[in-house]
């Protein structure tokens, strides 16, 4: 069995093989692989006995269920109004400069992906971002430099 087959099987054993199990399984694959490959989606379809189109259609609806390769650390920075009013753009630019990638891109070493996100629910402490699941708030160019340096060492 390939690695992805094993992972999908494990997740299906844990969450079940009903239609309702689909999203938890997709989330489980993303957590491990950072994205859903065609192979993974085909395998999930087989395991749940539904059409691959159903899996793909569901996955592509949700912004956190990526279907293109992402880095080990996915940075999602909020671009909605309250964060943007607190100089969110400067922070985005700072991250982009540090990682030498544009929004939507992944570093060549596959360590970081930089994405913009809609409201993350930290409007009183903007600008805010998530690195994978962890929120960071009241960001400044200096602060993101320190945070990213820490992740680089990981």
């Amino acid at each position: 069995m390939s690695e992805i087959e094993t992972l999908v099987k494990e997740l299906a054993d844990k969450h079940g093989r009903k239609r309702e199990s689909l999203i938890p399984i997709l989330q489980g694959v993303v957590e491990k692989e950072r994205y859903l490959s065609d192979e993974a989606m085909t395998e999930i379809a087989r395991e749940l006995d539904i059409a691959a189109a159903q899996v793909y259609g569901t996955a592509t609806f949700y912004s956190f269920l990526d279907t293109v390769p992402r880095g080990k650390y996915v940075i999602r920075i909020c671009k909605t109004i309250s964060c943007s009013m607190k100089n969110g753009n400067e922070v985005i630019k700072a991250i982009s400069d540090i990682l030498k990638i544009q929004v939507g891109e992944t570093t060549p070493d596959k360590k970081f992906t930089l994405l913009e996100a809609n409201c993350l629910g930290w409007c009183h402490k903007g600008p805010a971002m998530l690195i994978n699941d962890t929120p960071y708030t009241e960001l400044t160019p200096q602060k993101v430099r320190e945070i990213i340096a820490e992740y680089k060492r990981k």
Partner: protein
Amino acid sequence: MANNKPLKKVDLIFSEAFLNRDELKEVLSRSADEVIQELLDSGLRGRGGAGFPTGLKWKFTRDQKDPEKYVVCNADEGEPGTFKDREILDRVGRKVFNGMALCARTIGAKEGYLYLRGEYRFLLPKLYQILDEFHEDMKALGMDFHIDIKLGSGAYVCGEESALFESMQGDRGEPRNKPPYPTEYGFRGKPTVINNVETFVSALIINRIGAEKYQKLGTVDSRGSKLFSISGDTPIPGIYELELGMTVEQFVNEFGDGDTKAVQVGGAAGFCVPRKKFTDTIIGFEGVPTGGSMMLFNSSRSMYNVLHNYLDFFKEESCGQCTPCRVGCQQLFLGIEAVKRGEKPASYLETLLKLSQTMKITAKCGLGQSVGNSFHSIVNNFREEMIY
């Protein structure tokens, strides 16, 4: 009108009361009729934004014959400018689960779900720990009720209740046609009470302190207190529990930076109130309703940029299922850009206003229907900023 009256701050939601097993036992000893009557008397309306009377929602679901029913807590807090539900779950999560148990006992449900937005995934370890204690207490109290957590994956529209059910069922989060309403046809097609996080807590509190006491807060149309998420140009951003029924003027006196030119009440889906309307606009169901989102803008802000940001948000978050919303959001976005660049005459704004009105009437769900709220209120009140 007493516009300069200071705001009444309240401490019910985050208070340490109503957290333990004895409290839960006490409240669960009430009959379903008592619970529903108390809610009806209190005048509590849903705290997520739509404002449906909670007592009626519970009553309608209870009245359904189907033995399989569900309690769902909507923690898909995605409206720009709101963040209170995260704080409730973080600080008094147990109260939410207790409120859900009260609902389950009232309507006759054995299963409950918390639908948590993916952005709040970091809360999971804490919530599972609270749930463990909660389930132990359920067992000790001899109540057959279990709560599970379903995680969202980054889709604003899933905060719409029927889209949320679709998502829980493993599908694309596309809203259903309504009616039938969730009280009749909800999760798995079964009668379901779906309430906002704060609503469950308020329902619990009301059944402890009594409707009479709760009623004393607020106005005829907007009873009680609620949490406000305050951000933007304010020296004191944060979460505040305030008595309902204040004017925007009173609110700005307390939270503004002295230069407030507009307040967006109810998030991107809500209404923009310009300075000249502060004194006669009430924050509540009789004026501008809000799920809690309050964003302040001072005179340094371009309202064109604000609207542009909202429309960018809506065009990305529209599920794309119905044409008025899918195409409408994009055309409004492109339209204001074209007017700003001078590619379209100022009169084109009238065409766009008509389009947003059409969306209000024809879009399938609340998302598409409410884009016009901010569009109308910003374009009509700040027309010159849209053009020059």
